[in-house]
Protein backbone atom coordinates (compact mmCIF):
# COMPACT_ATOMS: atom_id res chain seq x y z
CA UNK A 1 0.00 0.00 0.00
CA UNK A 2 1.16 3.48 -0.80
CA UNK A 3 1.98 5.59 2.22
CA UNK A 4 -0.20 8.63 2.76
CA UNK A 5 1.53 11.71 1.49
CA UNK A 6 -0.46 14.17 3.63
CA UNK A 7 -1.61 14.07 7.24
CA UNK A 8 -5.34 13.30 7.50
CA UNK A 9 -6.06 16.64 9.17
CA UNK A 10 -5.25 18.43 5.91
CA UNK A 11 -8.13 16.65 4.19
CA UNK A 12 -10.50 17.54 7.01
CA UNK A 13 -9.45 21.19 6.78
CA UNK A 14 -9.70 21.10 2.98
CA UNK A 15 -13.22 19.66 3.22
CA UNK A 16 -14.19 22.50 5.56
CA UNK A 17 -12.74 24.95 3.04
CA UNK A 18 -14.73 23.45 0.20
CA UNK A 19 -17.89 23.55 2.34
CA UNK A 20 -17.19 27.23 3.00
CA UNK A 21 -17.47 27.89 -0.75
CA UNK A 22 -20.19 25.40 -1.60
CA UNK A 23 -22.62 25.95 1.28
CA UNK A 24 -23.72 29.51 0.36
CA UNK A 25 -24.11 28.48 -3.30
CA UNK A 26 -26.18 25.43 -2.36
CA UNK A 27 -28.26 27.70 -0.12
CA UNK A 28 -29.02 29.86 -3.16
CA UNK A 29 -30.33 26.79 -4.96
CA UNK A 30 -32.41 25.69 -1.95
CA UNK A 31 -33.81 29.15 -1.21
CA UNK A 32 -34.69 29.98 -4.80
CA UNK A 33 -38.42 30.17 -5.47
CA UNK A 34 -38.34 27.55 -8.21
CA UNK A 35 -42.07 27.73 -8.89
CA UNK A 36 -41.58 31.34 -9.98
CA UNK A 37 -38.30 30.74 -11.76
CA UNK A 38 -39.63 30.70 -15.31
CA UNK A 39 -41.79 33.73 -14.64
CA UNK A 40 -38.86 35.69 -13.19
CA UNK A 41 -36.43 34.68 -15.94
CA UNK A 42 -38.88 35.49 -18.71
CA UNK A 43 -39.25 39.11 -17.58
CA UNK A 44 -38.08 41.50 -20.27
CA UNK A 45 -35.90 43.32 -17.73
CA UNK A 46 -33.91 40.11 -17.17
CA UNK A 47 -33.44 39.52 -20.89
CA UNK A 48 -32.37 43.13 -21.31
CA UNK A 49 -29.85 42.86 -18.47
CA UNK A 50 -28.51 39.59 -19.90
CA UNK A 51 -27.97 41.16 -23.31
CA UNK A 52 -26.29 44.24 -21.80
CA UNK A 53 -24.13 41.94 -19.68
CA UNK A 54 -22.99 39.90 -22.69
CA UNK A 55 -22.21 43.01 -24.76
CA UNK A 56 -20.38 44.74 -21.93
CA UNK A 57 -18.40 41.69 -20.81
CA UNK A 58 -17.34 40.73 -24.35
CA UNK A 59 -16.35 44.33 -25.10
CA UNK A 60 -14.42 44.46 -21.84
CA UNK A 61 -12.61 41.21 -22.63
CA UNK A 62 -11.59 42.45 -26.08
CA UNK A 63 -10.32 45.73 -24.61
CA UNK A 64 -8.49 43.98 -21.76
CA UNK A 65 -6.86 41.58 -24.25
CA UNK A 66 -5.74 44.37 -26.57
CA UNK A 67 -4.12 46.12 -23.60
CA UNK A 68 -3.08 43.06 -21.61
CA UNK A 69 -1.35 40.91 -24.24
CA UNK A 70 1.44 43.45 -24.91
CA UNK A 71 1.85 43.97 -21.15
CA UNK A 72 2.19 40.24 -20.53
CA UNK A 73 4.71 39.87 -23.37
CA UNK A 74 6.78 42.79 -22.15
CA UNK A 75 6.73 41.52 -18.58
CA UNK A 76 7.72 37.98 -19.43
CA UNK A 77 10.06 38.38 -22.40
CA UNK A 78 12.12 41.44 -21.62
CA UNK A 79 14.04 42.75 -18.67
CA UNK A 80 13.45 46.47 -18.49
CA UNK A 81 14.09 48.61 -15.42
CA UNK A 82 11.12 48.95 -13.11
CA UNK A 83 9.51 45.75 -14.32
CA UNK A 84 8.45 44.80 -10.79
CA UNK A 85 6.82 48.19 -10.34
CA UNK A 86 4.95 47.93 -13.63
CA UNK A 87 3.69 44.47 -12.69
CA UNK A 88 2.55 45.76 -9.29
CA UNK A 89 0.70 48.70 -10.80
CA UNK A 90 -0.99 46.54 -13.43
CA UNK A 91 -2.14 44.07 -10.77
CA UNK A 92 -3.43 46.82 -8.48
CA UNK A 93 -7.08 46.73 -9.72
CA UNK A 94 -7.17 43.12 -8.52
CA UNK A 95 -7.00 44.20 -4.88
CA UNK A 96 -8.52 47.67 -5.19
CA UNK A 97 -12.11 47.97 -3.93
CA UNK A 98 -14.13 48.17 -7.18
CA UNK A 99 -15.91 51.33 -6.03
CA UNK A 100 -12.51 52.98 -5.69
CA UNK A 101 -11.69 51.78 -9.19
CA UNK A 102 -14.92 53.47 -10.35
CA UNK A 103 -14.03 56.76 -8.68
CA UNK A 104 -10.53 56.56 -10.16
CA UNK A 105 -11.99 56.00 -13.62
CA UNK A 106 -14.28 59.00 -13.17
CA UNK A 107 -11.34 61.15 -12.07
CA UNK A 108 -9.38 60.06 -15.13
CA UNK A 109 -11.88 59.43 -17.92
CA UNK A 110 -15.04 61.08 -16.58
CA UNK A 111 -16.58 64.26 -17.93
CA UNK A 112 -14.65 66.35 -15.43
CA UNK A 113 -11.74 63.88 -15.31
CA UNK A 114 -8.20 64.87 -16.19
CA UNK A 115 -8.42 63.64 -19.79
CA UNK A 116 -12.21 64.08 -19.94
CA UNK A 117 -11.92 67.20 -22.10
CA UNK A 118 -9.59 65.47 -24.54
CA UNK A 119 -12.00 62.53 -24.80
CA UNK A 120 -14.90 64.94 -25.24
CA UNK A 121 -13.06 66.64 -28.10
CA UNK A 122 -12.79 63.21 -29.76
CA UNK A 123 -16.53 62.81 -29.27
CA UNK A 124 -16.09 60.14 -26.61
CA UNK A 125 -18.21 60.29 -23.48
CA UNK A 126 -17.84 57.24 -21.27
CA UNK A 127 -19.85 57.76 -18.06
CA UNK A 128 -23.41 56.43 -18.25
CA UNK A 129 -22.73 54.51 -21.48
CA UNK A 130 -22.30 50.81 -22.28
CA UNK A 131 -18.79 51.71 -23.44
CA UNK A 132 -18.12 53.11 -19.98
CA UNK A 133 -19.41 49.91 -18.39
CA UNK A 134 -17.05 47.93 -20.64
CA UNK A 135 -14.12 50.18 -19.69
CA UNK A 136 -14.91 49.67 -15.99
CA UNK A 137 -15.11 45.89 -16.43
CA UNK A 138 -11.90 45.86 -18.50
CA UNK A 139 -10.11 47.84 -15.79
CA UNK A 140 -10.85 45.23 -13.13
CA UNK A 141 -10.36 42.16 -15.32
CA UNK A 142 -7.06 43.29 -16.88
CA UNK A 143 -4.91 42.04 -13.97
CA UNK A 144 -6.38 38.52 -14.13
CA UNK A 145 -5.81 38.46 -17.86
CA UNK A 146 -2.19 39.59 -17.53
CA UNK A 147 -1.55 37.05 -14.76
CA UNK A 148 -3.03 34.22 -16.82
CA UNK A 149 -1.13 35.22 -19.97
CA UNK A 150 2.13 35.56 -18.07
CA UNK A 151 1.63 32.13 -16.53
CA UNK A 152 1.06 30.79 -20.03
CA UNK A 153 4.12 32.54 -21.46
CA UNK A 154 6.32 31.09 -18.75
CA UNK A 155 5.24 27.67 -19.98
CA UNK A 156 6.40 28.35 -23.53
CA UNK A 157 9.99 27.17 -24.05
CA UNK A 158 12.04 30.26 -24.91
CA UNK A 159 14.59 28.01 -26.68
CA UNK A 160 12.05 27.60 -29.49
CA UNK A 161 11.87 31.38 -29.87
CA UNK A 162 15.68 31.59 -29.74
CA UNK A 163 15.93 28.94 -32.42
CA UNK A 164 13.59 30.86 -34.70
CA UNK A 165 15.49 34.10 -34.12
CA UNK A 166 18.89 32.47 -34.71
CA UNK A 167 17.59 31.04 -38.00
CA UNK A 168 16.96 34.61 -39.15
CA UNK A 169 13.33 35.13 -38.18
CA UNK A 170 12.37 38.69 -37.30
CA UNK A 171 11.08 39.27 -33.76
CA UNK A 172 7.61 39.82 -35.23
CA UNK A 173 7.81 36.52 -37.15
CA UNK A 174 8.99 34.64 -34.05
CA UNK A 175 6.21 36.17 -31.99
CA UNK A 176 3.41 35.53 -34.48
CA UNK A 177 4.57 32.12 -35.78
CA UNK A 178 6.17 30.55 -32.72
CA UNK A 179 5.14 32.16 -29.43
CA UNK A 180 1.49 32.97 -30.10
CA UNK A 181 0.55 29.59 -31.64
CA UNK A 182 2.12 27.82 -28.63
CA UNK A 183 0.21 30.22 -26.39
CA UNK A 184 -3.19 29.51 -27.96
CA UNK A 185 -4.68 27.38 -25.18
CA UNK A 186 -3.39 29.80 -22.54
CA UNK A 187 -4.84 32.75 -24.43
CA UNK A 188 -8.22 31.01 -24.51
CA UNK A 189 -8.03 30.34 -20.78
CA UNK A 190 -6.98 33.93 -20.03
CA UNK A 191 -9.86 35.27 -22.12
CA UNK A 192 -12.39 33.11 -20.32
CA UNK A 193 -11.16 34.08 -16.85
CA UNK A 194 -11.12 37.78 -17.78
CA UNK A 195 -14.58 37.49 -19.29
CA UNK A 196 -15.95 35.80 -16.17
CA UNK A 197 -14.55 38.60 -14.01
CA UNK A 198 -15.98 41.23 -16.35
CA UNK A 199 -19.37 39.51 -16.27
CA UNK A 200 -19.50 39.72 -12.50
CA UNK A 201 -18.29 43.31 -12.24
CA UNK A 202 -20.46 45.51 -10.02
CA UNK A 203 -18.81 48.28 -8.00
CA UNK A 204 -16.74 49.99 -10.67
CA UNK A 205 -19.61 49.70 -13.15
CA UNK A 206 -22.28 51.32 -10.98
CA UNK A 207 -19.86 54.08 -9.98
CA UNK A 208 -18.45 54.84 -13.42
CA UNK A 209 -21.34 53.95 -15.73
CA UNK A 210 -24.38 54.29 -13.49
CA UNK A 211 -27.40 52.04 -13.60
CA UNK A 212 -29.83 52.36 -16.49
CA UNK A 213 -31.89 49.48 -17.80
CA UNK A 214 -31.04 48.62 -21.39
CA UNK A 215 -27.89 50.70 -21.39
CA UNK A 216 -25.61 50.07 -18.43
CA UNK A 217 -27.66 47.81 -16.17
CA UNK A 218 -25.78 44.51 -16.31
CA UNK A 219 -27.00 41.36 -14.56
CA UNK A 220 -25.13 42.03 -11.30
CA UNK A 221 -26.63 45.53 -11.17
CA UNK A 222 -30.08 44.09 -11.90
CA UNK A 223 -29.58 41.54 -9.10
CA UNK A 224 -28.66 44.34 -6.71
CA UNK A 225 -31.65 46.47 -7.70
CA UNK A 226 -34.09 43.59 -7.34
CA UNK A 227 -32.47 42.56 -4.05
CA UNK A 228 -33.56 45.86 -2.47
CA UNK A 229 -37.21 44.95 -2.74
CA UNK A 230 -37.59 41.31 -3.78
CA UNK A 231 -34.84 39.01 -2.43
CA UNK A 232 -36.54 35.88 -3.77
CA UNK A 233 -36.47 37.15 -7.34
CA UNK A 234 -32.86 38.23 -6.81
CA UNK A 235 -31.99 34.62 -5.93
CA UNK A 236 -33.20 33.41 -9.32
CA UNK A 237 -31.19 36.08 -11.13
CA UNK A 238 -28.15 35.19 -9.03
CA UNK A 239 -28.45 31.57 -10.05
CA UNK A 240 -28.49 32.63 -13.69
CA UNK A 241 -25.14 34.34 -13.07
CA UNK A 242 -23.81 31.31 -11.18
CA UNK A 243 -24.80 29.06 -14.08
CA UNK A 244 -23.08 31.28 -16.65
CA UNK A 245 -19.94 31.46 -14.51
CA UNK A 246 -19.90 27.69 -14.00
CA UNK A 247 -20.14 27.10 -17.73
CA UNK A 248 -17.22 29.49 -18.23
CA UNK A 249 -15.06 27.77 -15.63
CA UNK A 250 -15.86 24.26 -16.82
CA UNK A 251 -14.97 25.28 -20.33
CA UNK A 252 -11.46 25.90 -18.99
CA UNK A 253 -11.19 22.29 -17.79
CA UNK A 254 -8.73 23.29 -15.11
CA UNK A 255 -6.39 25.02 -17.51
CA UNK A 256 -6.13 28.20 -15.50
CA UNK A 257 -3.30 28.33 -12.97
CA UNK A 258 -3.02 24.55 -12.79
CA UNK A 259 -0.03 23.50 -14.83
CA UNK A 260 0.91 19.87 -14.70
Amino acid sequence: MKRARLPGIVFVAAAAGVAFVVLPLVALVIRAPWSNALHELSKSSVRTALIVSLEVSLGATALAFALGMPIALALSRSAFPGRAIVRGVVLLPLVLPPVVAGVALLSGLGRSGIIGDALHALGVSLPFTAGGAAVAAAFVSLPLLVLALEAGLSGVDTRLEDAALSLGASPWFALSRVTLPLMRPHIAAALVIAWARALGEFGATITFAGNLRGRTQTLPLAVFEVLQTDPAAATILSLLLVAVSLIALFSLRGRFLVQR
Partner: protein
Amino acid sequence: MKRCIAAFSLLLAACGGSSKTEVVVFAAASLTEPFQAIGTAFERTHPEIGIRFNFGPSDGLATQINDGAPAAVFASASERWMDAVAGKRGVRQREVFARNRLAIIVPASNPAHIASLSDVARTGVKVVVAARGVPAGDYARQVFAKAGISAEANIVSNEESVKGVVQKILLAEADAGIAYETDVSAAVSQRVRLIHIPDAENIAASYPIALVGSHASRSAADFIEYVMGEGQTVLRSLGFLPPS
Protein backbone atom coordinates in the same frame (compact mmCIF):
# COMPACT_ATOMS: atom_id res chain seq x y z
CA MET B 1 -1.42 25.61 23.08
CA LYS B 2 -3.11 25.83 26.47
CA ARG B 3 -1.56 29.22 27.04
CA CYS B 4 -2.88 30.33 23.68
CA ILE B 5 -6.39 29.30 24.59
CA ALA B 6 -6.12 31.07 27.93
CA ALA B 7 -4.92 34.24 26.22
CA PHE B 8 -7.67 33.95 23.64
CA SER B 9 -10.42 33.60 26.23
CA LEU B 10 -9.02 36.58 28.11
CA LEU B 11 -9.20 38.56 24.90
CA LEU B 12 -12.81 37.46 24.39
CA ALA B 13 -13.64 38.44 27.96
CA ALA B 14 -12.08 41.84 27.40
CA CYS B 15 -14.12 42.33 24.24
CA GLY B 16 -17.38 41.19 25.76
CA GLY B 17 -16.62 42.98 29.00
CA SER B 18 -18.16 46.25 27.87
CA SER B 19 -21.35 46.85 29.85
CA LYS B 20 -22.87 49.07 27.15
CA THR B 21 -26.29 48.16 25.80
CA GLU B 22 -26.19 48.24 22.04
CA VAL B 23 -29.05 49.67 20.02
CA VAL B 24 -28.97 48.95 16.29
CA VAL B 25 -30.65 51.69 14.25
CA PHE B 26 -31.44 51.21 10.55
CA ALA B 27 -31.89 54.66 9.02
CA ALA B 28 -32.55 56.09 5.57
CA ALA B 29 -29.42 57.27 3.70
CA SER B 30 -30.71 60.87 3.76
CA LEU B 31 -30.56 60.76 7.57
CA THR B 32 -26.81 60.06 7.66
CA GLU B 33 -25.68 63.50 8.87
CA PRO B 34 -28.46 64.30 11.42
CA PHE B 35 -28.55 60.80 12.90
CA GLN B 36 -24.80 60.62 13.33
CA ALA B 37 -24.96 63.92 15.21
CA ILE B 38 -28.00 62.80 17.22
CA GLY B 39 -26.34 59.46 17.98
CA THR B 40 -23.22 61.16 19.34
CA ALA B 41 -25.27 63.54 21.49
CA PHE B 42 -27.47 60.68 22.72
CA GLU B 43 -24.46 58.59 23.74
CA ARG B 44 -23.09 61.54 25.67
CA THR B 45 -26.26 61.82 27.76
CA HIS B 46 -26.75 58.01 27.91
CA PRO B 47 -23.23 56.66 28.51
CA GLU B 48 -24.63 53.17 29.16
CA ILE B 49 -26.03 52.90 25.62
CA GLY B 50 -24.10 52.50 22.36
CA ILE B 51 -25.85 53.33 19.07
CA ARG B 52 -24.87 51.33 15.96
CA PHE B 53 -26.14 52.78 12.68
CA ASN B 54 -26.82 51.11 9.38
CA PHE B 55 -27.56 53.74 6.74
CA GLY B 56 -28.96 52.80 3.35
CA PRO B 57 -31.88 53.15 0.97
CA SER B 58 -35.14 52.63 2.90
CA ASP B 59 -36.33 49.90 0.53
CA GLY B 60 -33.13 47.91 1.02
CA LEU B 61 -33.20 48.42 4.78
CA ALA B 62 -36.83 47.29 5.01
CA THR B 63 -35.98 44.17 3.00
CA GLN B 64 -33.01 43.43 5.28
CA ILE B 65 -35.17 43.90 8.39
CA ASN B 66 -37.90 41.67 6.99
CA ASP B 67 -35.19 39.10 6.25
CA GLY B 68 -34.32 39.07 9.96
CA ALA B 69 -31.66 41.78 10.31
CA PRO B 70 -31.26 42.65 14.01
CA ALA B 71 -32.59 46.21 13.85
CA ALA B 72 -34.16 47.63 17.03
CA VAL B 73 -35.15 50.93 15.43
CA PHE B 74 -36.09 51.71 11.83
CA ALA B 75 -36.20 55.27 10.49
CA SER B 76 -37.55 55.33 6.94
CA ALA B 77 -37.69 58.07 4.33
CA SER B 78 -41.19 57.00 3.34
CA GLU B 79 -44.30 55.52 4.91
CA ARG B 80 -44.30 52.81 2.23
CA TRP B 81 -41.28 50.95 3.61
CA MET B 82 -42.33 51.40 7.23
CA ASP B 83 -45.63 49.79 6.18
CA ALA B 84 -43.66 46.90 4.68
CA VAL B 85 -41.82 46.29 7.96
CA ALA B 86 -45.03 46.80 10.01
CA GLY B 87 -46.71 44.16 7.87
CA LYS B 88 -44.04 41.52 8.28
CA ARG B 89 -42.04 42.12 11.47
CA GLY B 90 -44.46 44.40 13.30
CA VAL B 91 -43.56 47.85 14.65
CA ARG B 92 -44.37 49.81 17.82
CA GLN B 93 -44.29 53.48 18.80
CA ARG B 94 -44.46 54.50 15.15
CA GLU B 95 -44.46 58.23 14.60
CA VAL B 96 -43.34 60.78 12.04
CA PHE B 97 -40.30 62.66 13.33
CA ALA B 98 -39.42 64.87 10.36
CA ARG B 99 -40.39 65.89 6.87
CA ASN B 100 -38.29 66.88 3.90
CA ARG B 101 -38.67 68.52 0.51
CA LEU B 102 -37.28 67.54 -2.85
CA ALA B 103 -34.88 69.78 -4.72
CA ILE B 104 -32.91 69.91 -7.94
CA ILE B 105 -29.17 69.61 -7.38
CA VAL B 106 -26.61 70.63 -10.00
CA PRO B 107 -22.80 70.81 -10.09
CA ALA B 108 -21.52 74.18 -8.84
CA SER B 109 -20.66 75.12 -12.45
CA ASN B 110 -24.23 74.30 -13.55
CA PRO B 111 -23.08 73.10 -17.01
CA ALA B 112 -26.62 72.72 -18.41
CA HIS B 113 -27.85 76.06 -17.01
CA ILE B 114 -30.65 74.51 -14.99
CA ALA B 115 -32.96 77.02 -13.31
CA SER B 116 -36.20 75.08 -12.90
CA LEU B 117 -37.84 71.70 -13.34
CA SER B 118 -38.73 72.44 -16.96
CA ASP B 119 -34.99 72.76 -17.71
CA VAL B 120 -34.49 69.26 -16.33
CA ALA B 121 -36.75 67.91 -19.08
CA ARG B 122 -34.90 69.79 -21.84
CA THR B 123 -33.41 67.51 -24.52
CA GLY B 124 -29.84 66.41 -23.86
CA VAL B 125 -29.74 67.18 -20.14
CA LYS B 126 -28.17 64.31 -18.21
CA VAL B 127 -30.37 63.60 -15.22
CA VAL B 128 -29.61 61.29 -12.30
CA VAL B 129 -32.32 60.10 -9.92
CA ALA B 130 -32.66 57.34 -7.36
CA ALA B 131 -34.13 54.07 -8.62
CA ARG B 132 -37.85 53.32 -8.39
CA GLY B 133 -38.62 51.82 -4.99
CA VAL B 134 -35.99 54.00 -3.31
CA PRO B 135 -38.06 56.76 -1.62
CA ALA B 136 -36.08 59.58 -3.26
CA GLY B 137 -36.61 57.87 -6.64
CA ASP B 138 -40.35 57.49 -6.17
CA TYR B 139 -40.64 61.09 -4.91
CA ALA B 140 -38.66 62.38 -7.90
CA ARG B 141 -41.15 60.77 -10.27
CA GLN B 142 -44.05 62.21 -8.26
CA VAL B 143 -42.48 65.66 -8.58
CA PHE B 144 -42.05 65.23 -12.35
CA ALA B 145 -45.71 64.20 -12.64
CA LYS B 146 -46.88 67.10 -10.47
CA ALA B 147 -44.90 69.56 -12.58
CA GLY B 148 -46.29 67.97 -15.72
CA ILE B 149 -42.89 67.25 -17.24
CA SER B 150 -41.53 64.02 -18.64
CA ALA B 151 -37.86 63.71 -17.78
CA GLU B 152 -37.66 59.92 -17.99
CA ALA B 153 -35.85 60.05 -21.36
CA ASN B 154 -33.14 62.25 -19.81
CA ILE B 155 -32.36 59.87 -16.97
CA VAL B 156 -28.87 58.44 -17.42
CA SER B 157 -28.73 56.52 -14.14
CA ASN B 158 -31.04 55.15 -11.47
CA GLU B 159 -28.94 55.22 -8.33
CA GLU B 160 -29.39 52.70 -5.53
CA SER B 161 -29.68 55.45 -2.93
CA VAL B 162 -30.10 59.22 -2.85
CA LYS B 163 -26.44 59.49 -1.79
CA GLY B 164 -25.52 57.99 -5.17
CA VAL B 165 -27.38 60.88 -6.83
CA VAL B 166 -25.42 63.41 -4.75
CA GLN B 167 -22.15 61.65 -5.59
CA LYS B 168 -22.74 61.81 -9.35
CA ILE B 169 -23.50 65.55 -9.11
CA LEU B 170 -20.55 66.10 -6.76
CA LEU B 171 -18.30 64.58 -9.44
CA ALA B 172 -20.06 66.75 -12.06
CA GLU B 173 -20.75 63.72 -14.23
CA ALA B 174 -24.44 64.52 -14.62
CA ASP B 175 -26.17 67.87 -15.23
CA ALA B 176 -28.95 67.59 -12.68
CA GLY B 177 -30.19 65.29 -9.96
CA ILE B 178 -33.30 65.09 -7.82
CA ALA B 179 -32.49 64.75 -4.12
CA TYR B 180 -33.67 66.13 -0.80
CA GLU B 181 -33.13 69.77 0.17
CA THR B 182 -31.10 68.49 3.12
CA ASP B 183 -28.68 66.58 0.88
CA VAL B 184 -26.69 69.70 0.08
CA SER B 185 -24.91 69.51 3.42
CA ALA B 186 -22.05 71.75 4.50
CA ALA B 187 -19.64 69.07 3.31
CA VAL B 188 -20.76 69.28 -0.33
CA SER B 189 -22.17 72.82 -0.59
CA GLN B 190 -18.96 74.08 -2.25
CA ARG B 191 -19.43 71.78 -5.20
CA VAL B 192 -23.18 71.20 -5.39
CA ARG B 193 -25.82 73.88 -5.93
CA LEU B 194 -29.38 73.52 -4.76
CA ILE B 195 -32.30 74.76 -6.83
CA HIS B 196 -35.57 74.93 -4.94
CA ILE B 197 -38.68 73.35 -6.35
CA PRO B 198 -41.76 75.55 -5.75
CA ASP B 199 -44.38 74.20 -3.30
CA ALA B 200 -46.94 73.69 -6.05
CA GLU B 201 -44.66 71.15 -7.73
CA ASN B 202 -43.00 69.80 -4.59
CA ILE B 203 -44.04 67.07 -2.20
CA ALA B 204 -43.45 66.65 1.52
CA ALA B 205 -41.62 63.44 2.33
CA SER B 206 -42.56 62.07 5.75
CA TYR B 207 -39.96 60.26 7.86
CA PRO B 208 -41.50 57.69 10.22
CA ILE B 209 -39.51 56.03 13.01
CA ALA B 210 -40.53 52.96 15.03
CA LEU B 211 -39.38 50.10 17.21
CA VAL B 212 -39.01 46.91 15.19
CA GLY B 213 -40.63 43.68 16.40
CA SER B 214 -41.96 43.04 19.86
CA HIS B 215 -38.71 42.57 21.77
CA ALA B 216 -37.15 46.00 21.36
CA SER B 217 -35.33 47.23 24.44
CA ARG B 218 -36.04 50.17 26.73
CA SER B 219 -32.84 51.77 25.36
CA ALA B 220 -34.21 51.65 21.82
CA ALA B 221 -37.37 53.40 22.98
CA ASP B 222 -35.19 55.99 24.71
CA PHE B 223 -33.44 56.70 21.41
CA ILE B 224 -36.77 57.29 19.64
CA GLU B 225 -37.84 59.64 22.43
CA TYR B 226 -34.55 61.49 22.04
CA VAL B 227 -35.11 61.87 18.27
CA MET B 228 -38.60 63.26 18.96
CA GLY B 229 -37.23 65.60 21.65
CA GLU B 230 -33.69 66.97 21.72
CA GLY B 231 -32.96 65.50 18.29
CA GLN B 232 -35.41 67.91 16.66
CA THR B 233 -32.97 70.80 17.09
CA VAL B 234 -30.32 68.90 15.12
CA LEU B 235 -32.80 67.97 12.40
CA ARG B 236 -34.01 71.59 12.14
CA SER B 237 -30.46 72.93 11.97
CA LEU B 238 -29.75 70.62 9.02
CA GLY B 239 -32.85 71.75 7.15
CA PHE B 240 -35.40 69.06 7.97
CA LEU B 241 -38.97 70.26 8.45
CA PRO B 242 -40.95 69.60 11.67
CA PRO B 243 -43.16 66.49 11.68
CA SER B 244 -46.37 68.47 11.21
